[in-house]
């Protein structure tokens, strides 16, 4: 397996959706190719860091304000909409 072939399978490998034979070939490649090992390992870390980062968390006060605004709009639509007119 060449490095470019390894790379094409990287996403499925990291997602764990790969057949046993291909997985074995990929891991055989990883056992001797340091560059691909590093790319694989640091790509996995990239995903984990973003997933666990709490980037763009919705603050509680803003959350309450947005929810109130949404609910108020829904109520006013209910009054003016087809259901409310019945």
């Amino acid at each position, binding site marked *: 397996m060449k*490095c*470019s072939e*390894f*790379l*094409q399978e*990287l*996403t*499925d*490998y*990291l*997602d*764990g*959706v790969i057949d046993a034979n291909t997985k074995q070939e990929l*891991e055989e490649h*990883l056992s001797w190719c*340091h*560059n*691909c*090992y*590093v*790319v*694989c*390992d*640091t*790509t*996995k*870390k*990239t*995903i*984990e*860091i*973003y*997933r666990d*980062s*709490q*980037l*763009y*968390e*919705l603050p509680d006060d*803003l*959350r309450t304000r*947005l*929810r109130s*605004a*949404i*609910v108020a*709009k*829904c*109520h006013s*639509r*209910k009054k003016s*909409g087809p*259901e409310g007119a019945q």
Partner: protein
Amino acid sequence: MGAIQPKVGEPVSDELALVEAAKAGDVGAFEELVRRYDRNVFRIAQHITQNREDAEDVVQDAFFKAYSNLNQFQGQSKFYTWLVRIAVNEALMRLRRRRPERTVSLDEDVKTEDDTVPREVADWSPNPEQQYTQAELREILDRTIHGLPATFRTVFVLRDVEGLSTEETAEALDLSIPAVKSRLLRARLQLRSRLSKYFQRREKANEREKSGSGDSQP
């Protein structure tokens, strides 16, 4: 090296009942759906628009649009996937409005650097994120993902941050499964490569510290 563990989602067993109640005019039931997914919609919106005010507007408009069009939701997909589709469209619309000079489309085939493995790949420090404070780390992650094309950011946030499956992402974005996979691979590799600037091993810096020439002496 094992596969990454998917994020565990909310239970959806009672979700259809909430949707049905909301369709019948129960705003309280809809409010429960808002409570369940507002954080996700906000995160997705901010990843796409890269703008806090736009993200706030997307949350309001996407939920209100969902409420107004609940009768269109037939229950063939998860409510969340349907909602994400509405939110992504709202977010992209705002992005286009803000950056009219640049075409923003999920269909665009973004030309990027060749996806081959470079000859020399710098390894990262162990637990690289711990070199920075939480605020510094968020700044780095924000700046790094900001540089990605919108189509890559969108696929990455849905798949890797929100934990949607490839199929759900394809459905939410109206893309084919191979298109989702190809964008995801390129998004992951580009982020990895850009983060290396901050996270790679700094042998020389460490050596300087060990030899006592650093200014972090007690």
